[in-house]
């Protein structure tokens, strides 16, 4: 667990603890003892959709339940749980509708993990539902669901308009602002991985839950998708809490085939994405990742460099003042970690594919691309920014880091 204030606030550290499947009462008590700003914690937990899991973890060690902030966290967790129960019902309705039309569906991301890696659907909080259908079914599925209560904010959108996306225009359901994404691909078109969505279909597995049978990705593909989605699509800046917890949960199911996973990660040119995700999951969420796995996936960097890059990635997991102050530097450090050229990624970068990684990370004003804000005359501001970047790099070099 990182303990230096350069890396994470006490609230962020407590939140990270809750990402572990069994954080241990003593560790939670220690984290609570340092003095928690409940308002800050709730805001952070809501941002990460972690309120219900966090509440369950800390309620077990008896926090000050009289605190108003704790009560607000409890309210938020209850709302989140209700949202998840509604989402589960909507998923059942959706798969029933598509099933009647013989449209096969694979539950992606949270929906799939809720019925495999976690004890229940509600135990894996998520913002929206993601389902994968075969490309020739995608438009039919999208239209069909709009006759069953789902609406598109862009009803006249043509599928071709979204040809670069891995999903059709998002569907919404009111009241409650529920969202559904119908994917015809697992990754956006411009991804740099040697990967075809057909692979997911070929090894998809059937699981029984709630009186139904669902198709879910093979565990190797689930973990691979978690890693690639976080390390590449979100450039390790968004969805960190869920990623760490998902990784730990998939591995903990038992019988995870690491040989298969390493082979698949290497063959698809995703080894470094998997390395960073799994290294963080092991250090921060106690995921049971063997040393040999990390050695196999590791980019060609010294431990000295790896450690400092890890501090940077940890500092950028959550929105905070400790985040890297420069977009350019953030990109540079990401490239240093993922090693896209060594990985065979060519020139493809996540920030060229999607603006969502930035929007989703709720980047502060100072994180916006310089070209958006500077007219070239603001030399003082530019120099100040360079200074902040240099100071950030110095902090990375100096900060102590202690693993979980």
């Amino acid at each position, binding site marked *: 667990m990182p303990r230096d204030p350069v890396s994470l606030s006490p609230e962020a550290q407590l939140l990270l603890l809750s990402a572990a499947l069994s954080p241990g009462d003593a560790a939670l008590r220690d984290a609570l003892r340092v003095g928690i700003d409940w308002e800050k914690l709730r805001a952070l937990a809501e941002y990460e959709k972690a309120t219900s899991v966090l509440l369950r973890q800390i309620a077990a060690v008896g926090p000050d339940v009289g605190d108003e902030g704790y009560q607000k966290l409890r309210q938020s967790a209850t709302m989140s749980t209700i949202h*998840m129960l509604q989402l589960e019902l909507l998923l059942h309705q959706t798969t029933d509708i598509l099933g009647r039309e013989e449209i096969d569906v694979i539950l992606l991301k949270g929906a799939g993990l809720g019925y495999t890696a976690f004890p229940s659907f509600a135990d894996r909080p998520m913002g929206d539902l993601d389902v994968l259908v075969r490309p020739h079914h995608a438009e039919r599925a999208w239209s069909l669901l709009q006759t069953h209560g789902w609406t598109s904010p862009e009803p006249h959108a043509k599928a071709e308009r979204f040809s670069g996306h891995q999903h059709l225009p998002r569907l919404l359901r009111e009241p409650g602002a529920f969202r559904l994404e119908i994917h015809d691909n697992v990754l956006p078109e411009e991804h740099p991985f040697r990967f075809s969505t057909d692979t997911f279909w070929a090894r998809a597995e059937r699981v029984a839950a709630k009186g139904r049978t669902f198709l879910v990705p093979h565990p190797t593909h689930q973990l691979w998708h978690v890693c690639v989605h976080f390390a590449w699509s979100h450039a390790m800046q968004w969805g960190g809490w869920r990623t760490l917890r998902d990784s730990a949960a998939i591995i903990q199911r038992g019988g995870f085939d690491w040989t298969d996973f390493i082979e698949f990660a290497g063959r698809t040119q995703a080894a470094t994405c998997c390395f960073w995700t799994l290294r963080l999951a092991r250090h921060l969420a106690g995921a049971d990742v063997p040393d040999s796995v990390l050695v196999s996936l590791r980019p060609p960097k010294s431990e000295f460099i790896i450690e400092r890059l890890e501090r940077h990635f940890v500092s950028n997991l959550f929105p905070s003042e400790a985040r890297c102050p420069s977009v350019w530097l953030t990109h540079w450090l990401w490239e240093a970690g993922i090693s896209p050229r060594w990985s065979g990624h060519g020139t493809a970068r996540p920030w060229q594919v999607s603006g969502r990684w930035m929007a989703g990370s709720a980047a502060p004003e100072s994180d916006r691309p310089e070209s958006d804000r500077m007219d070239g005359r603001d030399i003082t501001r530019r120099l100040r920014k360079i200074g902040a970047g240099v100071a950030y790099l110095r902090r990375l070099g100096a900060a102590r880091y202690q693993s979980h």
Partner: protein
Amino acid sequence: MSASSEGHGISTDSVVVATKDQVSSDLAGETVLLSMQSAMYYGLDEVGSRIWELVREPIRVSDIRDTIGREYDVERERCEADVLGFVRELAEKGLIEVTNGA
């Protein structure tokens, strides 16, 4: 010998089980329930959550009474009245199925 059977004909001999028309989740010692039929939410406290856990599989009401009485150290008659009242409420809300004379 069964208790009086008011409300949904439920007695201590009745066998009850959670319907499939609901989803639920544990939340720090409490349970949040969503009924698919009524689209209503329900919150269960600690004891209610324990009973809900028991009715996930078919169970006789007398067995619920005995389990709750033992675990919470409640006098038998009072426990029976409370359990019957609670189970009837679940039945009225369509959250459990009841089988009599099984």
